[in-house]
């Protein structure tokens, strides 16, 4: 049986040429390659939906940043997913303005409709539900973000309606 020496394994082939180009562009702007780490994680996530161990090793290789440091960065942030997520990731604001204006009923309605709790993905892989710190829509609370779109003035009904629309069409009209 052959053995593989992990230490000398080259992970870079896990990244596509497009990904490498995007990461190199970020690295060229910053003073150090290390500083492009967070952008690199975002690039990979944009292409693959989440950051797998292989992707993490590959970025670590490419930027010459220790894996442990990169993992420390990756797990630090709310918007980097280190586990597979659904097609649509719901970031529901659970901070104070939303709490004061009816978050509870929006949350229960979403949980009931999707039949999942925070941190879970629906069986059909369509939705993941996460909480998010204040989304800066406090004057239009309650609020949530899905992808790059922000939704405000939510009610139990409007939130579920939005999700129904998403589930059927796969995308939302803004």
């Amino acid at each position: 049986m052959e053995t593989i020496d992990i230490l000398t394994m080259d992970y870079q082939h896990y990244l596509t040429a497009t990904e490498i180009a995007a990461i190199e562009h970020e690295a060229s702007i910053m003073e150090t390659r290390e500083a492009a780490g967070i952008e690199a994680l975002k690039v990979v996530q944009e292409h693959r939906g989440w950051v797998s161990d292989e992707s993490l090793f590959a970025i670590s290789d490419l930027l010459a940043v220790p894996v442990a440091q990169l993992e420390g960065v990756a797990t630090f942030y709310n918007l980097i997913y280190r586990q597979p997520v659904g097609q649509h990731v719901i970031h529901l604001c659970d901070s104070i303005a939303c709490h004061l204006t009816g978050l509870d009923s929006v949350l229960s309605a979403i949980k009931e409709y999707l039949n999942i709790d925070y941190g879970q993905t629906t069986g059909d892989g369509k939705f993941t539900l996460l909480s998010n710190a204040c989304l800066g829509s406090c004057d239009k609370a309650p609020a949530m973000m899905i992808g790059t779109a922000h939704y405000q003035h939510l009610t139990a009904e409007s939130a579920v309606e939005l999700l129904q629309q998403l589930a059927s069409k796969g995308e939302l009209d803004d």
Partner: protein
Amino acid sequence: MTEQIVNNSVKPLTQWVNLQQPLAFDDYCQAGGYQGAKVALLQHQPNEVLEIVKNSGLKGRGGAGFPTGMKWSFVPMFDDDDEDAPDNKYLVANADEMEPGTFKDRLLLEGAPHQLIEAMIIAAYTIGANKAYIFLRGEYHLAAQRLQQAIDEAYENNWLGKNIQATQFCLDLYVHSSAGRYICGEETALINALEGKRANPRAKPPFPQVSGLFGKPTIVNNVETLCNLPHILKNGIAWFQGIAPNSDAGSKIYGACGRVKTPGLWELPMGATLREVLYQHAGGMQEGLQFRGLLPGGASTDFLVAEHLDTPMDYDSIAKVGSRLGTGGLIVLDDKNCPVAMVLNLLRFFAQESCGWCTPCRDGTPWAVEVLARIEHGQGKIADLDTLAKLCDFMWIGKTHCALAPGAVEPLRSALKYFHDDFLQHIEHGCCHYNPASVAKRTQVSQSHTNQSVAANPTMAGQSYE
């Protein structure tokens, strides 16, 4: 539109804001944009601009209210031929805005991106920085797009890049989108984040002004702070000080959220009273609700109550009544929302966003959450109030590595003071009197949580919480 701009001289920061479609480069110039930067670059030496900013009385709008000119003056300056000169200095606009209840910078970023760019040119010129970053929270996608577009236009029109407007001054400006973590707003954590490290705050000294980003002199300023600069340069110190009737110069973007009639943002002369903002601008409480209290400047400020409503919202006056101006965004509590639940929500935020670097905060914030949850769910005891008071002490200024934990203490300790009766009622009646029906349900949700704390607490043993 144009007329409005001319008449709007007391609203310098928001006069050019257009959320639908921010002013493109030509329109921004026509409205009077880039004139402040022209005054700075073409008529003044950097040290002269520094004097102007110092004498204007501009204070930081990022929360702490530190005088901007003084902060800049700590940046070492060098002659062209000085061998000790660092190869660069940096300017960073702090656009991380994640403080719950704060949404003012978003207005400036999405509504008037050129204003921030012009401001950063002035600031970078003054401190001698040739590279600048806008550290933007990851959720503000629209702002990222609009800023990048404005930056591209500024490059095309020689307001960024090499030899700006035929001067010796060069500046490159980049947008860095973060990925969602409140602590990145703390300026030394922000610097670590920009360097690609885990965003724990750094020890001070050295202060960033001397050794910051990549070990070089660095200034981090809030977006709103910076956006004042074009107007100060263009209109002068006397004009800036004339806007406000008191010792704090200029205008301030105040906000209000919670169950008020018309939540929103308003640019007013610095020193409008809490009452004015709450009743004249936010329209007072919604139908059927009474005012209970408010946080005057975001989640990490102390509660104020009815007796404080005539306090002007400037740094000193708000400090005198025991709170902080913070970000100037009111979070308003009504009489049908539970104060204990409100504080629980706030502390949950701080516990979740604690970076975990120092023990008082890493352990103290979740502990406070646990105790507050127990009280809110009707399982608190009188001794819990002492525990909370003690935690406030453990996490106070000087005992933690950064200001996040003391910020978490502020709403907690003031709630213990102003809403003492509410805490007592929860404990005495074993339920939340604002929401008695929800207790059973909530208890269920936090079952594992409470069981743990109950088991660890012999005095509570034997009681049933099923």
